[in-house]
């Protein structure tokens, strides 16, 4: 893994914007990739590929998305506890989309640009010192 760029937020926004053919100014940290930016399932695959190429790392399937909430996605109560944490962490997110419980199948809708930034930072922290 390469050292992350200083302005990681800007770099990730650039990658997401390019994958989704958007103007980077339309892409905010709290933008839901699916609901706000129109990403579909193959776009997630595309974005992961671009992140892997750009930052020279391997992102195991599902890790990026599960990593935002360290929970068992098959436990409905755990999901809602994780969502409560996210509500505190992402006040700018359009939470009015979820008047009721979020539920397992809606979890991908919670993935934002920040989710990716946070994941990349955690990966750097977890990497052994001096490892490239």
């Amino acid at each position, binding site marked *: 893994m390469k050292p992350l760029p200083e302005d990681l937020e800007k770099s990730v926004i650039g990658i997401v914007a390019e*994958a*989704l*053919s*958007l103007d980077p100014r339309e892409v905010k940290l709290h933008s839901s990739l699916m609901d706000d930016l*129109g990403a579909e399932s*193959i*776009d997630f*695959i*595309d974005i*992961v*590929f671009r992140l*892997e*190429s750009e930052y020279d790392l*391997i992102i195991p399937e599902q890790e990026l998305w599960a990593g935002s909430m360290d929970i068992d996605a098959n436990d409905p109560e755990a999901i809602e506890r994780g969502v409560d944490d996210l509500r505190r962490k992402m006040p700018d997110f359009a939470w009015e989309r979820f008047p009721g419980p979020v539920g397992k199948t809606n979890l991908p809708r919670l993935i934002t640009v920040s989710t990716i930034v946070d994941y990349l930072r955690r990966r750097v922290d977890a990497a052994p010192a001096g490892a490239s």
Partner: protein
Amino acid sequence: MTRRIVVTGMGAVTPHGDLAQSVAAVAAGRSAIGPVRSFETSSFTQTLAGECLVFDPRPWFRPAKALKLTDRRTRFAVAAAAMAVADAGLDAAAVEPAGVVIGTSGSDVQTEDVGRALGGPEEGDARDIDYFAGRVLRRLNPLWLLVNLANMASAHVAIQLGARGPNSTITTDWIAGLQAIGEAARWIAGGESDLVVAGAADSGVLPFAFASFEESGFFEGGEPRFVPGEGAAAFVVEELGHARARGGRIIAEITGYASAQGDLATAARRSLDQSGTAGEDVDAVYDAAVFTPRHRHLDDAAADALFTNAPSRFECSSLLGHALAASAPVALAVAAASRPPGTILVNSVGAFGQAASIVIKGRVAA
């Protein structure tokens, strides 16, 4: 009661531009053939092609990211289909139940992307599957399959138009385009649809296409030498009563269609019989000809059996290049848009002896 089938809209993408530009250029005898720009052809026997250099796909795709899932054929198909729908004056509600069928001879493999993912021969041997898979799985665009699947042409046309009718992609080599138009007529005749956007999109200006043409002898055999082309043509094919009820402009009637294995004369004869057209009533014939000894088309003997007179032949691949499965449909569109109304027979043959013919009549009886 027999349902009659008419053409009510046309669109095309050729090296000359759209259909109107192509008609004007062909009428003026202007050639679009030039040196290939998209890859280096100096090591091939043929270095020229009819390439769609001015075509810009961006206006035809919404959202813009849809473009990353398309190859050249799909881009041509979507543009030509949208032009045909606009030409027919159809609104979104009229298009929603429409069928879509596109003919194409195949797909490319994105040569440069795959080469880049694999790395040069000094890095490893692509025949070593461990090496190959390691490279491809880590470095190839993960959407590669979706770009290359042949059916993406008709899928993207349907998505961009919002068409939920029957949908198909035909891949019978070079007859696929003419066959798409003919099969659309059958969908309508059989009552599966009232309106179908049918056409063809193809490209012979691709590295593997060039390499295969060279090895298969397409570039041999003196002059005129086979010149690959690319492009698309699309037609709004409609049931006559449906077209009249909405006040559609009727361009021509499709009165005969047949395909056959092994013999173009058989396909042409079947189409003319269906059409109730005697050979001498044919005003013009178009053969999507390939100038190689191995791909002889409607030969003189077959023509003698079909026609007592010698109908005029028209030809535009010498000006546009041979756009493979799109060649005959492009010629059909150019002919229908430029000739005085008459009866036209269009023929097409594939490399394995597949043959298809269509008869259209510019004079549509009440």
